[in-house]
């Protein structure tokens, strides 16, 4: 079987799996990285949201063969390391606002939030209601209002 090499949470990994297997299953079923969750498998619910070279992507829609050896995949497990602390400011904001209920969607929510804040900052502006309305991550527990508060607070500290 073909080998695929890329970076996950700061480490180089090589997996031996068919190239069309989506990254989500490589992470979860082969590498045992279970922070990214399955909620739909068709890039709709966004529960698996992770970062590829700092941008938000959905691993359920990326064949592992599309990754290059230098590509850096960051899952929720590796997020704090991107700021060199125990917790990323967005994770801290999530704790401060007691956002999670069941918690299943929250890794994806946090990863999407961090990418949103970075994108908005790169555009030289601050987060608007329209930006928050544009987040597509499902939270079936309905924590949306606390998510909005936490993103605004987390953005302050990023």
């Amino acid at each position: 079987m073909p080998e695929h090499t890329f970076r996950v949470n700061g480490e180089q990994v090589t997996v031996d799996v068919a190239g069309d297997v989506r990254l989500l299953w490589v992470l979860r079923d082969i590498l045992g990285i279970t922070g990214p969750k399955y909620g739909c498998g068709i890039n709709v619910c966004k529960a698996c949201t992770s970062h590829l070279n700092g941008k938000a992507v959905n691993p359920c829609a990326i064949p592992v063969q599309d990754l290059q050896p230098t590509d850096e995949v960051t899952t929720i497990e590796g997020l704090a390391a991107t700021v060199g602390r125990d917790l990323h400011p967005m994770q801290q904001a999530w704790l401060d606002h007691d956002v999670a209920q069941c918690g299943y969607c929250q890794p994806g929510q946090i990863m999407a939030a961090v990418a949103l804040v970075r994108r908005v900052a790169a555009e030289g502006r601050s987060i608007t209601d329209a930006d928050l309305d544009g987040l597509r991550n499902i939270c079936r527990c309905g924590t949306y209002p606390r998510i909005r508060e936490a993103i605004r607070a987390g953005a302050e500290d990023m």
Partner: protein
Amino acid sequence: MTGPQDDGPGSAIGRRRFLGYVLAAPTLVAAAELAPARAGASAPAGAGALAAPELTELVDLNDLMTAAALPTSNLISVEVRQDGTVAFALPRAEVGQGITTSTAMLIAEELSVPLDRVRVTLADARPELVFNQLTGGSNTTIATYTPIRVAAAVARQRLLTAAAAELGTDAGNLTIEDGVVKDRAGRSVGIGALASKAASTRTERVSVELAPRESFTVIGRPHNRVDALDAVTGRKKFAMDLDVPDAKPAMVCRPPTINGKVGSVANLAQVRAMPGVTDVVTISTGVAVRAETFGQCVDAVRALQVSWRPGTAEGKSDASVLRQLEAAELPMGLRPPTPVVEGKFTFYFRSNSALEPNCAIADVRAGRAEIWSALKSPIVAQQAIAAKLGLPAGKVTVHVTEGGGSFGRKLFFDAALEAAEMSQKIGKPVKLMWHRADDSRQGRTHPMATSRVRVAYLGDTVLSYKQRHTSVSTDLGHGLGEIITALAARLPVGDIGFAQTFFHLSQATSYRFGAVSRLLSETDKGFNTGSMRNVYSPDVTCARELIVDQLAARMGKDPYRFRRDFLQDDRSRAVLAKVAEAGNWGRSMAPGTAQGIAFHAEYKSVSAALVEIDCRPATVDRPIRDGVTGPRVTKVVFAVDVGLAVNPRGLEAQMMGCVMDGIALALTSSLHLRDGHFLEASWDNYFYTRQWNTPPELQVIVMPSTSDQPGGAGELGVAASMAAVACAYGRATGTMPTSFPINHGTLSFTPKPTVPPIPPSPTDGLDHAR
């Protein structure tokens, strides 16, 4: 049994004095009985009376009776460990409602230990608890509030006694603070150091006094969730995250119509040879595949060529079910000679899909089985799985995992049953998960229903209120958490009786409406239904509150003042007045926008919602890709009185979620039934509330405690929220809505094919990096 001891009539201490146990163990284990022993005693009698053949096949009566007969078998216990932590295995399911946090708070309160030193886990299925391991009906805190505190109080008393011996003083001179026992001279000893000294070599019954409410320092104060750090770091483990040796991914190729059956499979050998695939086998519900990754399961499911036999809803559609409901509607009786207000409302099928789909791990070996799944009725699951596998129940171990949401879905154990069947057939462990499309199309639904209301009035007096609710049958087959009840509910007569009983028990008469009569009639058991969050109440309450608005208009009264005048008690009026005041009821609003107000009481709690909605075209038609926009709820003020709020922050979170559910039920979320199947197969088909539907302003007001006892909360807020949104919509548009959700008539997506049953995995993920 756990019960107040009689210290004389009216004695406050007497009401707080209970019996508990110290159990024989190497470390301190204190216990209390979870509930009166009545449940255990009635089980064998109920079985004898039914005498159905399948009962004797399913129930190992001797096991049950032996277990129930053990004097301490139905205890819950608090263990003090030598590292100073306190452990408790909660016989309930945590699915996001925050009961591990509130339970830890109860123990922290009575034991005076820091909250972060209390470790609450979920208990495996414990058949000896009989009726007492069901998570539903917003009952957890109501049922466990006293027993958990009694067990903790017994531990506290033992620790004080052990510390007194250690320090050579009288226990009366000692206090516990932050997990440390102190005397007046400043000497101290940690509870960890006392854990083995306070242990007992024999089981003893002891009497304890609970802390009075006035002394509470933990209960009633807002606390963040105990599992929050795990949730935000990705460390929280759900069933599919567990590493069970050799439990490889598995999925099921399902029929194109509801509950269709496998006829034959044309290409078994070909699919077995696909990359990563280890097994393909037909099970009761479809063709199951096991592979190295779930991605390869998806590919294998899509490749299977199966000929299907008909299901249980063949050819049915929304329109045909509506005709069935009409045929099953009970007569409203003669119209009274007085003026009346009448209405008929239709509620389409809805999905209680949690984000974590149905899933379970099963490892079935010769003579035994082990199951991992988020289960709200683990005892029934254990018994049913044992029956399916032909094993004694005692040989099936059922571990309850943390659940990724439930909303009623996890009362059923559909995936666990499939996983067990598959694992037995292939002789290997499996990690079985439903695809989202499976969950929408073959999963449990909230049944379609109609509700008819007639109110007779004269002048300013309401003479009578009549409501006839007609519904596709709700499967209450999870019973009350115990196999005998579950089987009784499946008998034709028993089930009707049970559903009707459930309906009556859940519907309160909150208004002074004269002669009140409410009846439920059910039809058609061909659908996979279940209790969705708040069960009958959102629909029943929505219909009632819309009629209340009509009635108020007929009497020339303001909707808020009408409700306030007709509500029966002060507690109810207080929550209503609170939202009216905080939400500035009656403020002037632009055309096309309006306020709505509604009330609901259940689970010994009362609630009210004030909603503002914007139905103007610019808002309704705002563009969102693959989403339903529609009217936007711009503001919600929600007030709740649960008697005693154990964790106000958790309660606020539950009400927030209930509000989001209520908005979805009123405006956007439903399943469309066509030709024997549901069209929805994705979160972009089934329109649960999204960020773009979320009210920019939300205020949840937790009323000051009005009782020493907590009421239920997990489902409480859905009914008033849905009703208030509907009322606001009616006032904004000038037309009372009669069909829910209001956008059901517009199909806002292109349905995915039913063969193959699940969509392909996309490949363009890199194009959407942002």
